[in-house]
């Protein structure tokens, strides 16, 4: 039960790159991924910048080696999951008991929303092919089937913390000896459904988002996928794992369906719980990959919770959403990979466009990319609708 769980590899596709090296280069070059919409068709095309993956579905399908007509969410998932697997050095996937645990928020909605236009004008209209992968779980299965994973397959949907919660469940599957390896993370493609949904909440910024900046006025949506490969102690012994998933916790804010409590109760409990599981004191955390959406509400709640837990020893912090946009169900997975890589490579990521200190907080995010840090422990935060708050802690092998 107390067996350690290790990160043996990772993969990311996002608005700043089709794989990890490309993403890291974008951080290094300070080039965020937000632009006007190129691939998503929406009447809001020229209103809201988004961080799209810079490839059309045909190109993604080529890379993924999957059919072009399936959901973009599955294509993104496949590309990142395969990169993760390959980076682990585990080789032939059929040699292991493998689980695939993937988070997403709206499944194959990108196809469903096309289908619905035809269907609403005629109940017998619309091609069922566009509806067949509507369910969140169906996206996971398309990828699991392509990867050849059968032992344990699961999908988690807790809004913007889905990807992080996938790592928790995956870790438990290993500790309970149900599988030896789990590819865990999340995926989400941009859809009109989510774009319009976030627009009704009036939390989309028409400019580039400014997480943890006093002038912030909302988030930019993004898309992508990110997965880590979790392995058991015995498998890790014959690999060169990146780091350990040493702690994690999920807590509920129990305050409001979409808004965070002003004092960040859930955020605090998640971070505290993750620290407790890893057996660490707050001052041992070297870097926090913030949830940091750039909304008024999130950043102040998250910041106040961090202040309560970490003051006066604030670690370096940044929101990589200032580059990738908010990738919703994928964000917990993408940021888990960035965080694990931070431990492995000593990277501290920049928070783009930070200029004005938030008056509620005594700390500021890091604004420049740097490497060579001795990061022993890194925390990643993901908070979602339904008060769903998750924190993960990654620790160097010791």
């Amino acid at each position, binding site marked *: *039960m107390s067996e350690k769980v290790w990160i043996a590899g990772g993969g990311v596709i996002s608005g700043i790159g089709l794989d990890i090296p490309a993403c890291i280069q974008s951080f290094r070059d300070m080039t965020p991924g937000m632009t006007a919409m190129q691939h998503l068709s*929406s*009447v*809001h095309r020229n209103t809201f910048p988004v961080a799209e993956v810079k490839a059309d579905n045909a190109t993604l399908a080529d890379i993924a080696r999957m059919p072009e007509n399936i959901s973009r969410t599955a294509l993104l998932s496949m590309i990142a999951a395969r990169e993760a697997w390959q980076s682990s050095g585990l080789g032939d996937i059929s040699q292991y008991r493998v689980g695939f645990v993937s988070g997403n*928020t709206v*499944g194959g909605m990108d196809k*469903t*929303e096309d289908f*619905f*236009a035809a*269907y*609403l004008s005629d*109940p*017998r209209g619309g091609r*069922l092919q566009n*509806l*067949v992968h509507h*369910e*969140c*779980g*169906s996206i996971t*299965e398309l990828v699991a*089937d392509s990867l050849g994973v*059968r*032992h344990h*397959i*699961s*999908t*988690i*949907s*807790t*809004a913007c913390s889905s990807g992080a*919660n996938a790592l*928790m*469940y995956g870790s*438990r599957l290993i*500790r*309970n000896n*149900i599988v030896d390896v789990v590819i865990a993370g999340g995926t989400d493609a941009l859809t*009109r*459904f989510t774009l*319009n*949904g976030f627009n*009704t*909440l009036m939390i989309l910024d028409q400019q580039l988002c400014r997480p943890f900046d006093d002038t912030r006025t909302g988030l930019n949506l993004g898309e992508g996928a990110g997965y880590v490969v979790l392995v058991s102690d015995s498998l890790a012994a014959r690999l060169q794992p990146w780091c350990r998933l040493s702690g994690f*916790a*999920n*807590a*509920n*804010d*129990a*305050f409001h*369906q*979409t808004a965070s409590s002003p004092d960040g*109760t859930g955020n605090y409990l998640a971070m505290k719980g993750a620290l407790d599981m890893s057996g660490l004191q707050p001052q041992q955390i070297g870097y926090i990959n913030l949830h940091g959406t750039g909304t008024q509400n999130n950043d102040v709640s998250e910041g106040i919770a961090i202040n309560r837990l970490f003051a006066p020893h604030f670690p370096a912090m940044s929101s990589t959403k200032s580059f990738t946009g908010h990738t919703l169900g994928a964000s917990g997975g993408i940021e888990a990979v960035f965080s694990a890589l931070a431990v492995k490579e000593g990277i501290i990521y920049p928070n783009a466009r930070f200029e004005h200190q938030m008056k509620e907080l005594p700390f500021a995010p890091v604004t420049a990319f740097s490497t060579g840090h001795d990061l022993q422990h890194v925390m990643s935060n993901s908070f*979602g*609708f*339904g*008060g*769903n708050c998750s924190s993960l802690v990654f620790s160097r092998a010791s």
Partner: protein
Amino acid sequence: MHIYINGTGCISPQETALGGPLLATPREYEQVRLATVDPDYKQWIDVKQIRRMSRVVKMGVGAASLSLEAAGITAPDAIITGTAYGCLDDTGVFLTKMVNQQEEMLTPTAFIQSTHNTVAGQIALLLGCNGYNNTFVHRGFSFENALLDAIMILKEGSAKNILAGGVDEITNHSFQLLSRFGLYKKTPVKTMELLNSPSRGTIAGEGAAFFTLGITKQPGAVAELSGVSTLYKPLWEGEVIGHIMKFLEDNNCTPADIDLIVTGRNGDIDQDEIYEEVAEALFPDHAEASFKHLCGEYPTAASFGVWMANAVIAQQEVPEAAVFFGAAPEKIKKVLVYNHHQGTHHSLVLLTAC
């Protein structure tokens, strides 16, 4: 470690929310779409809130509340739900308006409530529960994953009482669309004739069943949750049979120790074949109960099956409406629930009387 089912709650097309003897007066239908028999939700939810809540949220909150009441628990340490479809009604509302209004003049309520973890979030909100909260949305494994997560967390020791359940709703859109995929019977079949109907297709159902699981036995507990297992896309019947054997072995028992099997037969001749194969290979003389003629088919219907299995153990009797084959022994100790969803998602849940 023992994990006890300290309380259950179920809202379904049967009168399961009222208490009393199990299926004493079964509702008989002759239709291809069953809807839940709704209890008075005002007993758990503020009237103003009820109006804003979709059916799936209400039935989830209702079944969760029943389960906690039965267990005498007011604040579980964790809330875990399984829902394959999530909040279909609100998804349909937002999608329809978005299409019809060309993405203009939309309001947030339906979008907010369309999120798959709305039920789990609402329960946490109503209970003021700051604990672990998760939602599994993996088709025919959604409920089973929720149970497994609960078992793992209880074993870990980070929680003592966990509320776990499965919930799915059917809406006009989803019924119409799933019908186009050919899932349902072309003509209505009577409830008690469904499982012997000689045609393809089943009937659509919905419902919510929740379980308050704990490591300490409460007065209301009649069974332990001994094990849960899933099998994805078995290549042939033999793999299913082998998986069941292995599952029983892992739980230190053999088919002879099982007193009753509860199967997910849904009246589709193609889909029910595997239940025949399994019964013939492993449980040829066992009593068999079924439940999908009572609650309809939906991806988390196994939660109704497990709820029924627990109630059977409580009463030590299989109600006539649920009998599919044979007669259960006088003492019903071990009940195996075997369900599959669309032939691709097979699951096993083992309950043991305590």
